[in-house]
């Protein structure tokens, strides 16, 4: 029995690539939702930042994923990039919450 990709009936690279696309799509949607929330709450600067981050992150991730291969050297960099995107999104979300608190305290 062969091991590795050649003897693999489970379509592992395809599954992994679908998982990547799912994640990148989710991050982009999350950033756009954060952007809309910021717009609604009256913070156009945060909204613009989130929208720009969404576009830049989507473009960059898709471009890097074109070079993705099961043993490619680019896996780490694209993994780091998506992780950083989620962390930036979490900071934007926390900033929105803080801005909302400040608005509530000083109307």
């Amino acid at each position: 029995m062969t091991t590795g990709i050649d003897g693999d009936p489970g379509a592992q690279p395809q599954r992994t690539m679908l998982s990547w696309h799912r994640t990148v799509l989710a991050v982009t949607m999350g950033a756009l939702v954060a952007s809309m929330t910021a717009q609604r709450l009256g913070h156009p600067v945060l909204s613009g930042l989130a929208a720009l981050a969404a576009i830049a992150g989507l473009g960059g991730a898709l471009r890097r994923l074109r070079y993705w291969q099961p043993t490619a050297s680019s896996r780490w960099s694209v993994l780091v990039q998506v992780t950083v995107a989620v962390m930036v999104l979490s900071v934007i979300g926390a900033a929105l919450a803080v801005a909302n608190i400040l608005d509530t305290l000083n109307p």
Partner: protein
Amino acid sequence: MTDASAGQPEQDRRRPRSVYGVGTEPDVRFSLANERTALAWLRTGLALVAGGVALTTLASFGAGNAFLDVVAGLACIAGGVLAFAALSGWQRRERALRLGEPLPAPRILPALVIAVGLFALLMVGYVIVQLVT
């Protein structure tokens, strides 16, 4: 193309060195499974962030609500921590795979369970307070 001949020439270029500098190339299916695990953790963190942002929107209806905002901010930060944990967990597992060691237990899982439980308790407490007052 065998695993050994595919892995050898690339070994010097791949980062991070703390992972690719040790051990031997594992079955590529295990590496791919590890990658999908890290992505699933990332999406879990993202769900917490999305929940926090949704809660911020909810809190902005009416006069604003500082308590909901605090909970939302905490959820967002927890999501960011989870994203970082996804990356470091990938490193630890890939390293164990290369060294042929047993896989390490997920360190962040107990923290995630506590965080989600706390989140739920805070929201239940909020609903009860709203019903009573």
